């Protein structure tokens, strides 16, 4: 703290006298911001006009405070869940994914001659959530958010991370149970790869369209033939884990390269 000004200087400052030179005034003001004692001395040295003004404002404050509601004391940035409203919006999608996976688990259990349906559907589990992450329909404030500097790949990744955090445990749970036991890498890697693919494709055609397209393509090209022939598809054999990992990394890298396009990504 700078040295205390003299009482005389404080009085002259309080009186608003133009006689004090600028440098002194500056020192006093800097000092007063930090020193409660000198502020108290200042209070003693105020002019009558100041004191009247302060009293009048006090009375007006009394009226305004009495007329208004009592402010609620709560931490400003409340629990992240509220702030990340998105989780609440996502819950229906996650529940749907869980229901589908649960049904798939039941089906696999009751139809043991078929390959694990949970494994077949695993890559598609997060996609509905990712589609919902960047959609005008699920995000009511989309028009507002789209014009902010934060709109872009970071926001989308944050929301996608929430989707993955919610969906992957469900997937792991169903995948680890009983007849559905499958190599966890074979469940999770395609999941991540498809998520990255949705984002990458989404930077070209829109995230929701990309998600739907990928879901349809996978269902038609891999799931249906696999169920028809009752054989595990080549893409989901244990040997494929390595290529899936590489694919995920490549897709993620490409998505990051296209980060700039996400700033103005439209949704349908």
């Amino acid at each position, binding site marked *: 703290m700078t040295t205390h000004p003299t009482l005389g200087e404080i009085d002259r400052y309080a009186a608003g006298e133009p006689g004090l030179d600028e440098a002194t005034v500056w020192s006093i003001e800097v000092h007063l911001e930090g020193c409660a004692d000198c502020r108290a001395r200042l209070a003693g040295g105020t002019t009558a006009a100041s004191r009247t003004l302060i009293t009048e404002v006090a009375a007006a404050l009394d009226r305004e405070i009495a007329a208004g509601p009592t402010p*609620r004391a709560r931490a400003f940035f409340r629990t992240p869940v509220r702030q990340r*409203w998105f989780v*609440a919006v996502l819950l229906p999608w996650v529940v749907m994914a869980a229901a589908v996976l649960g049904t798939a688990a039941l089906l696999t259990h009751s139809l043991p001659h078929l390959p694990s349906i949970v494994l077949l559907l695993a890559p598609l589990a997060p996609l509905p959530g990712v589609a919902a992450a960047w959609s005008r329909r699920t995000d009511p404030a989309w028009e*507002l958010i789209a014009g*902010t*500097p934060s*709109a872009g790949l970071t926001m989308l990744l944050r929301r996608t991370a929430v989707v993955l955090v919610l969906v992957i445990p469900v997937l792991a749970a169903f995948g680890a149970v009983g007849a559905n036991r499958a190599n966890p890498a074979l469940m999770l890697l395609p999941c991540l790869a498809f998520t990255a693919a949705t984002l990458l494709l989404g930077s070209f055609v829109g995230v929701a369209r990309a998600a739907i397209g990928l879901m349809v393509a996978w269902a038609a090209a891999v799931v249906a033939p696999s169920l028809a022939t009752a054989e595990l598809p080549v893409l989901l054999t244990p040997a494929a884990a390595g290529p899936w990992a590489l694919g995920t990394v490549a897709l993620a890298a490409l998505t990051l390269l296209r980060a700039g396009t996400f700033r103005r990504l439209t949704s349908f």
Partner: protein
Amino acid sequence: MRTVSTAETAATIHPWAIHAQALRVRAGRHLAVDGLDLSLGTGVHGLLGPNGAGKTTLIRALATVAKPAGGKLTLLGTPVDGRADLRPARRALGYLPQHFGFYPRFTVREFVAYMAWLKEMPKADVPAATQRAIDRVGLAAKADARLKTLSGGMLRRAGIAQAIVNDPQLLLLDEPTVGLDPEQRLDLRELLRDLGTDACVLVSTHLVEDVVAACTDVVLVNEGRLLWQGAPEALGAQGDAGHPGDSPAERGYSALLRRHRAEATR
């Protein structure tokens, strides 16, 4: 006390807050803004035009929400067309669309603070800026009420609060007076004039009297092009008693539209 950075004191050389040249913007498949030239500086500018004139699309393009299909667009000296980085312009921008969605369970304060955070305001400044924005729009009594409990006029004021929370240099409001009662409309006009002292405010409206009362400058668009730009009094001078309208400004407005339509059919 604080330090003043060199960047802050670098002289600004852009003469216009908004500078559009031959701007083309699509709305769906339709080319809603077709070859628009516009230069706007500090002050309150009223954007007038019939329905379907491309006002909303223009404002969306200026808010960097819609990507221009062609032409040049510069906001506050930085280009925002093509592959330019949009973040500097967006930080100094405030936007309120006509149909703005909101999160019903958020309170006014949370909503405005969330938008402030999204606009990349320093986290330490967000609470004070939120309170200031809420006070400026007159929602102090309802700051902790949920958005779904607010009436239409209050909701729109909450929307304006989120638009001004970052003290923007460029403020874009699409039909902000819809749903406001006459007293609220007067308050909004005063707020707009306050904001217009050191920012560029563009207000799109279909109410001519709003424009005349609050705006220093009127921009008339039709069919995606700039029709006329000038002071509200000059707008009044464009028409005479022969044109439909209850006020000089309305008559001037109809006169200009009629003239433009006549020329278009020629």
